[in-house]
């Protein structure tokens, strides 16, 4: 009896298995690398090598690629990543009151009171304060992303970097680098800028109370954790499964959904891995909207469809999706 949670994000695809008592027994973290179908397949293959289909009692998907993942696997529940992150955190520790989450393209702050979301905010159009931005800066400075946090902690001088926008930050880093600041100081400045920007954009007007959880891929970065602690003057906790909290939440919701449904899961089983799945997109010319419609095929049979505004292709599909 295991519950599977799949979080398909812009940068990583995470899969977890929870046992009956909702303990994490498997934790898989793969790079999405621009092809969510591929990465879901890869992750599922790893699970199949250890478990058989009957052992999976429910599946939940989340993240920006949750629709594709649900189309492939036949999920019991499809949920947005704000709700799943909150559920996972309050399950891990019911006393959590604030969640800071930074992922690949999104960053969000969630305020919990008595385990219930009472407020949240998500970054708007830009991706400045997120993982992909850090990835890019690490690459530019010739540093492995995993070393970024450790290097930041070695800094002795605070360099101030403009944090509002990725383009501004980058030119500021280049200017300061040419003035001769060390890489450590630049990185520490970058972490500070990111945390400052996060708190002033998303945290504005919100009561940030203990306990504070910091989760998402960027929470691996000790430099940012420290920057948050310095700015908030409070302890910031990085939970054990910080990287996969979204999928943990999705798996918990899958359990709830299956129990409500009399114990039946709609999981299609690992046989789906034998089928060839691909996505095809086209521009529909039936009306002036020119939607870019995406269709998901498995063995040439249509299993999912999205992005048509009028919904006519979705209605034709066997599996119907409710957002």
């Amino acid at each position, binding site marked *: 009896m295991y519950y599977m949670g799949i979080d398909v994000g812009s940068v990583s695809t995470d899969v977890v298995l929870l046992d009956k008592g909702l303990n994490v027994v498997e934790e898989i973290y793969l790079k999405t690398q621009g092809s969510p179908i591929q990465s879901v397949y890869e992750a599922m293959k790893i699970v199949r090598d250890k478990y058989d289909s009957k052992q999976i009692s429910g599946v939940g998907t989340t993240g*920006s690629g949750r629709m594709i993942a649900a189309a492939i696997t036949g999920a019991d529940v499809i*949920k*947005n*990543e*704000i*709700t799943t992150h909150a559920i996972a955190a309050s399950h891990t520790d019911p006393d959590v009151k604030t969640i800071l989450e930074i992922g690949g393209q999104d960053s969000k702050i969630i305020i919990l009171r*008595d385990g*219930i*979301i*009472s*407020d*949240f*905010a*998500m970054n*708007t*159009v830009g991706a400045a304060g997120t993982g992909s931005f850090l990835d890019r800066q690490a690459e530019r400075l010739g540093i492995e992303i995993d070393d970024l946090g450790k290097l930041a902690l070695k800094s002795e001088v605070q360099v101030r970097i403009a944090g509002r926008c990725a383009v501004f930050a980058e030119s500021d880093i280049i200017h300061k680098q040419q003035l001769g600041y060390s890489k450590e100081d630049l990185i520490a400045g970058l972490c500070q800028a990111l945390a400052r920007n996060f708190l002033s954009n998303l945290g504005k*007007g919100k009561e940030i109370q203990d306990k504070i959880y910091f989760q998402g891929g960027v929470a691996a970065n000790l430099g940012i954790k420290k920057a948050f602690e310095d700015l908030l003057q409070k302890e910031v906790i990085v939970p054990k499964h910080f990287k996969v909290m979204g999928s943990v939440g999705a798996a918990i919701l899958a359990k709830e959904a299956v129990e409500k449904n009399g114990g039946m899961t709609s999981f299609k089983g690992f046989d789906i891995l034998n089928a060839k799945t691909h996505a095809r997109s086209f521009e529909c010319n039936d*009306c*002036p*909207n*020119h*939607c*870019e419609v995406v269709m998901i095929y498995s063995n040439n049979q249509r299993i999912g469809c999205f*992005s048509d*505004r009028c919904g006519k292709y979705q209605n034709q599909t066997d599996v119907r999706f*409710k*957002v």
Partner: protein
Amino acid sequence: MEIKVGIPGGLLYYRYDTFINTFFDELEIDTVYSLETTKKILDMGVNCCVNEACLPMKIFHGHALNLKNQCDFLFIPRIMRCEKNEFICPKFCGLPEMVMSGIKRYDNVISYPIKMNRPYDLINHFIKIGKSLNVKEYKTISAFQKAVKKHNEKKKGIHDIGYKHNVFLGGHPYNIYDSYANMNLIDKLHSYGIGVITEECVDYKDKEEETKGFIKKPYWVFFKNNYGAGKYLADHGQIDGIVYISSFSCGIDSISVEILKNNVDHFPFLVIKVDEHTGEAGIDTRIEAFADMLERRRLH
């Protein structure tokens, strides 16, 4: 030869559509409209509008460009003021010039300044339009009066009933009612059992009352409407949350949203920013999470 007037949709056409349609119909002038925003309209607008403008301005440019070669006159209202001592976004005051240089059409554009707070000016403005279209003055006056009457009789705004949750939907009318720009926001809210109330459904007096007590009298019309209505509905327990739709880079909203947020303490508040994005995943995620939050708060 019949004169044809082109009327671009977008911007405040969403508020004054009945007035504008009735006025030109009563003048018995041929009209051609560009009303529905589509990807093509947006693309046309983006290509001919200054880059820094907000999304609704770009959409308006697209509608104007669409009509450029289909009409003898192009109607681009220059709204200077809606109410006494209040102002509107400066882009409205310079709209004709912006559009003319954008779509490269400089002649036969109807662009006389409109000051809605002065009835005398207002009627003169429309008499001028009538004159340039060779319509007799008495006919224009009667068309104007009929248009005003119809405008006043029209049911404005949205006040949903029978939904599980109710929210105040704030924002400028052209963001609220343009379902292309806002990616079907209202339908999406409905599908989660969330009904909406817009500012038109709150009494003018109530809105006015709510905006008293600031250190300075707020002079933006959009601010007063949205702040006043949102605050009134929240204080009177008529809503469970606020959804505010705002165009990226909107100056007035940057103030309206913050002041409203600060004055409705710990109230579920969702700000949706629209720009040229067409991917709907971002907006869907936010709406779904917001709906979950309303639902779990209700059960709690």
